[in-house]
């Protein structure tokens, strides 16, 4: 029993345990939220709000109050804080700064490509792939194939420029 408790808070859990727990949470979220777990839609709302403040976006469709009462915000906030909590309970919390310059560019370029791709394909790995397929949408399956192809190209680029 004590061993089980330590396995729980210290981890790492086997991948399949993670899959089962994530599936359970994913299904509960669909029921509670009446729409599936998604990440990018909310990030877009924040991007529009922040872009409006900086002056990149002209039309500001969202107010801060609206975003603070949107369920997507709390899912994303929950993911960040939950992961932080998870590292703290295992005494593994630390700040992990970028230690090599190449990763600044890699992260920025990767982030831009990912955001652009997710937006024009209507979803990321969660909303488009996992929950697209779970919603039995054909788009989800096609998106999954495209992501696999993209990963192949990305891995080639990574081996060529970053290793």
């Amino acid at each position, binding site marked *: 029993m004590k061993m089980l408790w330590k396995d729980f808070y210290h981890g*790492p859990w086997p*991948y399949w345990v993670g*899959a*089962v*727990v*994530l*599936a359970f949470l*994913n299904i509960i*979220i*669909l*029921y*509670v*939220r*009446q*729409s*599936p777990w998604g990440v990018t839609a909310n*990030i877009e709302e924040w991007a*529009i709000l922040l872009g409006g403040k900086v002056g990149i976006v002209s039309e500001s469709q969202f107010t801060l109050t609206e975003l603070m009462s949107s369920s997507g915000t*709390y*899912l994303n*906030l929950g*993911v960040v*804080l*939950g992961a932080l*909590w998870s590292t*703290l309970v295992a005494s593994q919390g630390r700040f*992990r700064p970028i230690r090599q310059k190449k990763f600044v560019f*890699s*992260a*920025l*370029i*990767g*982030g*831009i*490509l*990912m*955001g*652009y*791709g*997710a*937006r024009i*394909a209507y979803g*990321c*790995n969660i909303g488009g*792939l*996992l929950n697209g*397929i*779970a*919603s*039995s*949408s*054909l*788009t989800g399956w096609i998106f999954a194939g*495209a992501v*696999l192809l*993209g*990963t192949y190209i*990305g891995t080639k*680029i*990574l081996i060529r420029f970053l290793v």
Partner: protein
Amino acid sequence: MVKSQRKWNIAFSAFMGMLFLTLMQVNLKIALIFVLGTGLGFTLQKSRFCFVSAFRDPMITGITEITRAVILLIGLSILGFGVVYQISEWTHLSLSLNIFPLGFSTIAGGVLFGVGMVLAGGCVSGVLMRIGEGFGMQMVALVGLLIGVLAGKSSLAFWRGTFGEWPGIFIPAFLGWIPTIIFELLLLGGLWKLAYWWQNKHLGE
């Protein structure tokens, strides 16, 4: 030496408890969603779950442990979504599933997304999870994400105008729920077998 971070943990737990209580005062549903989101982040970190790894590792080491875990996650979600869909029909709950439009942009976007997530070291949920873990790199990736999403939004009209777009296809509308679920689970089972075979092939070398 590994020093216990119990003090940090207690302080953070208290903060999370207070945040939860505050949210409960505002809106019960939001508070519940926050708890579920926290559970997602906790599980993602504890199980080192990573969608990038699921796609990428088979190409590098041939190990498909995470790939098969993702297939399991998708399979269980299909079953669960089917059940929730049925319940919502009976209880007249309005449910909006992720049936997105289909177009050339789905493929182009998927490929760009795939390249991006390898370079950024995490997909969108992975970036959020790693920000929680304290990675500076993924904080930069989030800035990139915000820029990319805005750029994608403004070029949506171009993709629609140039290549066209069709309404999303909801497979159960053609096959019915039960055959769809059986078909999809068989397909996933086949992919699971393929992934398992792939790993054994690479380990045999």
